[in-house]
């Protein structure tokens, strides 16, 4: 009897479980289908209204429309308790001011290339489970365009873009918008970024230079001398030969920190640009003879012990340890190094004085840093926004971009509201701007901050502080001058008036130094197939040459391999594209 009962209980339990599972799924389906019915019902009347009504860049939909998107956050983002991707100041504002009810289909943390966000979005694309507004990187943009899943935005931008947004998009010759244009149609709205922000610079411990009585770097030979002195003359004064001349991470020439881009540019060698040669054809910069010269120098430095022999297994965070603990006093990097890792160095040793320098040249021609296209093609969150083909109201995405520009930069229009950027006061460093569905940052944001701070400090120009971002940094700078506190250090050496990260970018801009990729089309067929292999080959070969595992002449072998393995075909395709642009 007992057995029978047990058996029955088991069966009932199983049945219950099955019922439960199916019931769960049913319920969800039902809510989903009613949702779509609802949203399509509310959609239809307002479509007509919109087409008849004016083209006010911030016009409100009445009755409200429903749009969906997904949010990809970075591991850095922190939000105040109670503020969620689904409900926050932005979604409230969208509904109140624009009449747009923004639904967040999903959100994920991890916006780095190849990270969780990109993977989840790839799955969404492959399974055609897309929201109306899709944030994508360049690769995914091409995928959506190739599959006819991107709505044409040309008219919407022309009609609805606010003056502010138009200004942002026109920066840098409107190159950003061109990268989102296919056959004359704008199929993706780029997130405009400052092209100059990717320019390389040199960070050096000024206190070490002074201690060893070295001159500030003017040429590459100065750099080589400094590197030698930092290795052999015991800059940290512990009577041990435990320091290195220059830092390097395993990524070699990418990452914007502990890398060689700026070093190579001192020899007029560029890692991965398509540049015009003397015959007017586009050629790949990574295989040019200048590169060989630079690599030979690096090999010498490595053999002389000026580079950490373990660099091949160290990522940026690991190399930072050497910088913070005072074993490395010079590195090539970018403007944001002011925030990472330098504040940690300041905290560990307040006597460490870091000073940035523009990149220097090996000969009488000036060294020109490579700069971006005004859009970040690798970022899945801050790259492009695509509107799903077939969804209603593509112009709503432009309105959302207008709204962002207005709330973040509208000091002229009166739309500016700091509450949208971050809570005020904000001791915990919470962010809010990352909740926005569409971004339209000012590409000149950082340089304007610098110029504002400089004008205020040097000429006491109060008018310059009308830009509230400049004012924020000005206040922090003043606090640092007074308190020398660690919390203000990063901003102070970033935006301060003299010898700071942004002052270097300002120098580049004022002297019109900067060279960008002349190929800004979407990836060609051969690139899609071969580029990752070729990139790997390049990184491996360069690393081996640098470490002396192969002689410098291995570079010639690399060049011919590169050409054979698809490089020649890529060059052809790029030049075909170039010819079509004229």
């Amino acid at each position, binding site marked *: 009897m007992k057995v029978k009962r047990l058996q029955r209980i088991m069966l009932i339990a199983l049945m219950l479980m099955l019922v439960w599972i199916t019931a769960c799924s049913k319920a969800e389906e039902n809510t989903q289908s009613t949702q779509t019915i609802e949203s399509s019902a509310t959609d239809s009347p307002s479509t007509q209204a919109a087409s008849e009504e004016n083209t006010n860049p911030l016009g409100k939909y009445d009755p409200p429309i429903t749009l969906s998107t997904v949010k990809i956050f970075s591991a850095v983002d922190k939000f105040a308790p109670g503020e969620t991707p689904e409900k926050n100041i932005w979604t409230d504002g969208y509904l109140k001011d624009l009449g747009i009810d923004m639904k967040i289909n999903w959100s994920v943390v991890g916006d780095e290339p190849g990270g969780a966000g990109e993977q989840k979005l790839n799955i969404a694309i492959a399974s055609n489970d897309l929201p109306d507004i899709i944030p994508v990187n360049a690769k995914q943009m091409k995928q959506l365009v190739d599959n006819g899943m991107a709505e044409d935005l040309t008219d919407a931008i022309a009609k609805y873009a606010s003056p502010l947004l138009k200004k942002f998009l026109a920066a840098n010759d409107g190159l950003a918008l061109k990268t989102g244009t296919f056959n004359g149609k704008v199929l993706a709205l780029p997130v405009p970024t400052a092209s100059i922000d990717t320019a390389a610079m040199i960070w050096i411990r000024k206190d070490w230079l002074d201690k060893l009585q070295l001159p500030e770097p003017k040429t590459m030979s100065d750099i080589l001398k400094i590197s030698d002195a930092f290795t052999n003359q015991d800059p940290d004064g512990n009577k041990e030969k435990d320091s290195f001349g220059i830092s390097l991470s395993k990524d070699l020439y990418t990452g914007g920190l502990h890398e060689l881009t700026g070093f190579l540019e001192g020899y007029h060698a560029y890692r991965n640009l398509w540049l015009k040669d003397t015959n007017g054809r586009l050629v790949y910069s990574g295989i040019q003879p200048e590169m060989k010269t630079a690599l030979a120098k690096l090999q010498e430095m490595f053999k002389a012990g000026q580079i950490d022999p373990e660099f091949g297994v160290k990522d940026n*965070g690991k190399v930072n340890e050497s910088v913070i603990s005072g074993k490395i006093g010079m590195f090539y990097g970018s403007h944001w190094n002011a925030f990472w890792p330098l504040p940690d160095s300041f905290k560990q040793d307040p006597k460490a004085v870091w000073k940035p320098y523009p990149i220097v040249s090996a000969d009488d021609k000036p060294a020109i840093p490579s700069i971006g296209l005004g859009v970040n093609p690798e970022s899945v969150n801050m790259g492009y926004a695509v509107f799903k083909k077939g969804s209603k109201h593509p112009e709503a995405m432009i309105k959302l971009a207008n709204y962002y520009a207005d709330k973040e930069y509208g000091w002229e229009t009166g739309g500016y509201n700091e509450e949208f950027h971050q809570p005020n006061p904000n001791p915990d*460093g919470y962010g809010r701007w990352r909740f926005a569905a569409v971004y339209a940052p000012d590409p000149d944001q950082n340089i304007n901050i610098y110029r504002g701070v400089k004008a205020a400090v040097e000429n006491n120009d109060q008018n310059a502080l009308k830009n509230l971002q400049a004012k924020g940094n000005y206040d922090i700078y003043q606090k640092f001058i007074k308190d020398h506190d660690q919390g203000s250090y990063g901003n102070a050496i970033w935006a301060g008036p003299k010898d700071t990260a942004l002052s270097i970018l300002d120098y580049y801009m004022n002297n019109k130094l900067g060279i960008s990729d002349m190929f800004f089309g979407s990836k060609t067929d051969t690139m899609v197939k071969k580029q990752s292999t070729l990139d790997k080959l390049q990184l491996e070969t360069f690393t081996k040459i640098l470490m002396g595992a192969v002689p410098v002449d291995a570079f010639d072998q690399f060049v011919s391999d590169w050409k054979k393995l698809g490089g020649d075909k890529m060059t052809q395709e790029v030049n075909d594209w170039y010819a079509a642009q004229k």
Partner: protein
Amino acid sequence: MAGQTSFSRIVFNIFNYGFLALLSLMALFPFLNVLAVSLSNKSAAAAGLVKLWPVEFTFASYRFVFLRDEFFTALGISLERVLLGAALSMLVTVLAAYPLSKEEKAFPGRTLYAWIFVFTILFNGGLIPWYMTIKMTGILDSLWALVLPGAVQVFNCLLLLNFFRGLPKALEEAAFVDGANHWTILWRIFIPLSTPVLATVTLFTVVGHWNSWFDGIILMNSPNHYPLQSYLQTVVVKMNTSTFANIDPVQARLLSEISDRTVKAAQIFMATIPILLVYPFLQKYFMAGIVLGSVKE
């Protein structure tokens, strides 16, 4: 046995134990390092000065983690997942293994069924079909999405199946003579006799559920619904700095917090504790279970 005390034997033992000790130390060092970092001062950790002993001992990181809800929300979801997932998985695995352990005579088509199961070890539909199936089942963004898709662990099923076949047939026959049916035989004879292998398989399942993070990230629609390992993945994730150039100044200020290794280390360490606690108690079964299950008679 005579060789037990011979010279060569002693030398062998010295080297053998020395080698094994070295091996276990190698496994232990990373743990000690993480523990030491979690108990150290922030800037000392950032400068890479912490090796096996904390520098400027502090509990600050643990205090920080304890004050944040995210860690404990995720821990709760993970515990729920492990309990529900292991229970469900064990149930269906036992129920599948029992009939498949019978002979072709008793269960016509048994071999075919067994091969169908094995087929799924060798081939699978791939990520996208997997995702779409789960989505269309309507369990996306719920605990069921983490538990149901992997409920039938075919490898565990085979372990169990082999173990069942190793049990004396006479037991089963005697039970039939006494009037028992299959349910009785399974619950009252097979299960009690199979505790070693069941413990092993349970451990596999529990550890599997505890450690998996990828499905959490793909199947959950909000970071608030992540199990612990998915949450940790977002916290501990490697910095990829190539998109930093256009960073916002406010966000840039947070960068220095990322280098906060001590908090990461504290979270990693706390996440390993539960599994570290389970292992010693199941270990004795663990060895017996694997050996017995793998030998056929």
